[in-house]
């Protein structure tokens, strides 16, 4: 029940993120913030209407959840279907899938940093909203804007080459993939990497400089100690296929388990005020078992990157704290750029592997195993597709735990921290509202994915009193 002496501020919609969201700030009578919540207000229900479909259709159905990371759903779904068929992919198929995934990581991370978040960093959270966008970046920092556009284009071309379309491509099929790449395509992809990688390293230096010049803000902005989760292979950061690792705030590996056993370790908490669930580590319960995923989650959870340049950069990243664990939320952007560097290096490795132009693309099977689980690291974090089928292969149950959900607790806590620090009464300036939005942007959530919702993402900020009565509502459409 709402306390009678509080008021509420609502930020609606949150902008420059993927999907729709709303922030509600509840004020006490003295104008201080009692709490703040990030709501995800839409619902689409892929888990329900997929029932009854043939499991082989799922790699085509589930990417429709989202236009930003359809590749991630496509691949996680295909991996779940591989398990239902009981097959192991050929090396060529596995590497082609990973190649498409690298294209997805590059284009999605570039979108998040260059198009959506860099305006706040380059111009400041409280700068004029009219210039705080990609066009503003293009005007004042054209080389940076061009780099973002170039990286997006590079990643999307990989996706299109393999899957014929940039958005909602079709390449993976249960048991393999439907096409390889030609020597010309391989050469073309390789040619594009060196220049982009050089400019990316310059951008990493730019971000480090920004973090140094804004050290206090960078280290305190929505920062708190958490556990971290991500896939690892031989202890190294892994994006396509590995074991799930949880690492505690002080750097101890809390647990590491096969992705097929995720449900034994990860539970999902539900709150009535959001359609986005709150996954947590079962052994610690909710909320103590909450953790963070995505770029910061992965670089904290792993021992190292397997590629040389990214590994060297990770050492510098970790040198910024005494114990090597980086809890600073603004460092999500830094970690995101390190992952782009890794994705370029991994793309080079894959393209230089002779398997990549092989012709053994698919393994067939008539077996139908009752259950299949596919887990990959989507750009935003760990993505889990879990299907149960009947003896004919019709879907009986679907569980999707999407990347954004894992960060739900952290996004709420971060928004509340910024609100409590900056809001004193209902007169809130735009810069403060944008700071709350930027907490969410650090995590690069995809609310279309996490709720499987339709549409773009307006956000509202609502200020309510203790009785729940709205006293100020700021909406962006």
């Amino acid at each position, binding site marked *: 029940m709402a306390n009678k002496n509080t008021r509420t501020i609502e930020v609606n*919609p949150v*902008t*420059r993120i993927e999907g729709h969201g709303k922030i509600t700030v509840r004020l006490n009578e003295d104008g201080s913030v009692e709490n703040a919540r990030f709501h995800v207000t839409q619902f689409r229900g892929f888990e329900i209407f997929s029932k009854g479909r043939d499991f082989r259709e799922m790699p085509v159905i589930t990417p429709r959840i989202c*236009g930003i990371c359809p590749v991630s759903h496509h691949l996680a779904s295909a991996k779940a279907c591989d398990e239902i068929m009981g097959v192991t992919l050929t090396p060529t198929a596995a590497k082609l899938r990973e190649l498409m995934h690298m294209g997805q990581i590059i284009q999605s991370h570039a979108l998040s940093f260059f*198009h959506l978040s860099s305006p706040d960093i380059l111009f400041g959270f409280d700068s004029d909203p009219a210039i705080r*966008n*990609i*066009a503003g970046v*293009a*005007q004042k920092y*054209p080389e940076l*804007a*061009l780099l*973002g*556009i*170039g990286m*997006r*284009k590079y990643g*999307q071309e990989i996706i299109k080459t393999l899957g014929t379309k*940039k*958005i909602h491509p079709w390449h993976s099929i249960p048991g393999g993939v439907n096409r390889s790449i030609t020597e010309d395509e391989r050469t073309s992809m390789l040619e594009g990497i060196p220049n982009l990688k050089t400019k990316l390293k310059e951008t990493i230096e730019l971000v480090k400089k920004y973090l140094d010049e804004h050290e206090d803000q960078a280290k305190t902005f929505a920062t708190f100690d958490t556990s971290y989760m991500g896939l690892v292979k031989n202890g190294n950061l892994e994006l396509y296929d590995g074991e799930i690792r949880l690492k505690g705030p002080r750097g101890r590996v809390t647990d590491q388990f096969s992705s097929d056993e995720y449900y034994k370790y990860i539970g999902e908490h539900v709150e009535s005020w959001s359609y986005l669930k709150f996954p947590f580590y079962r052994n610690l319960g909710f909320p103590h078992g909450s953790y963070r995923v995505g770029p910061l989650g992965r670089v904290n959870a792993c021992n190292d990157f397997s590629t040389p340049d990214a590994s060297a950069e990770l050492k510098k990243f970790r040198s910024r704290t005494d114990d090597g664990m980086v809890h600073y939320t603004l460092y999500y952007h830094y970690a995101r750029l390190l992952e782009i560097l890794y994705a370029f290096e991994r793309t080079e490795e894959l393209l230089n592997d002779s398997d990549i132009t092989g012709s053994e693309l698919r393994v067939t099977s008539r077996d139908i195993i009752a259950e299949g689980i596919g887990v990959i690291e989507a750009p935003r974090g760990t993505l889990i597709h879990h299907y149960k089928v009947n003896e004919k292969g019709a879907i009986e149950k679907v569980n999707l735990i999407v990347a954004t959900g894992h960060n739900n607790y952290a996004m709420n806590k971060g928004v509340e921290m910024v609100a409590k620090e900056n809001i004193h009464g209902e007169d809130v300036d735009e810069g403060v509202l944008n700071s709350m939005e930027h907490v969410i942007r650090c995590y690069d959530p995809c609310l279309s994915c996490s709720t499987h919702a339709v549409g*773009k*993402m*307006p956000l509202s900020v609502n200020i309510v009193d203790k009785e729940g009565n709205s006293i100020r509502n700021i909406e*962006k*459409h």
Partner: protein
Amino acid sequence: MKIIVAGYGNPFREDDRVGHVLAPQIAHYLESSGEEVELWIEQQLLPEIVEDMRDKDMAFFVDSLADASKGDHVFEEMEPDPNIEGLNIHSMGPGWILHLMRELHIPAPRTFLISVAGESFNFSEDMTQECKQRTEKCFEAFVKWWKNRI
């Protein structure tokens, strides 16, 4: 002449798919007329298209028109426009793309927007009969314009 023909819209929303239907027709016609044509089909415009437009002499954007009062089809030359409809890059138009090119100091081609009035935008992969007829007329008008453009 190097030409890009960019069709966009949601192909699962009835008449919003008109860009996906008409752009290939226009591209094929221009190609058969001896032009060097790049066909670009997506669900929405994205900043990355500036790189595809960089080396072109002419660009045609093909989209649906929600407001039928402007006519069955509208053919207009575009100028840079800094105003973005809505909040994010999901809703940018050709004018904003030209604005972005200007900010990035990328020479822009002469650019036209061809819009066909939609009748309905519900969930379907088929266009309405009305929109199909308008699309045919629009294509005929384009061919006539192209032949007489000098």
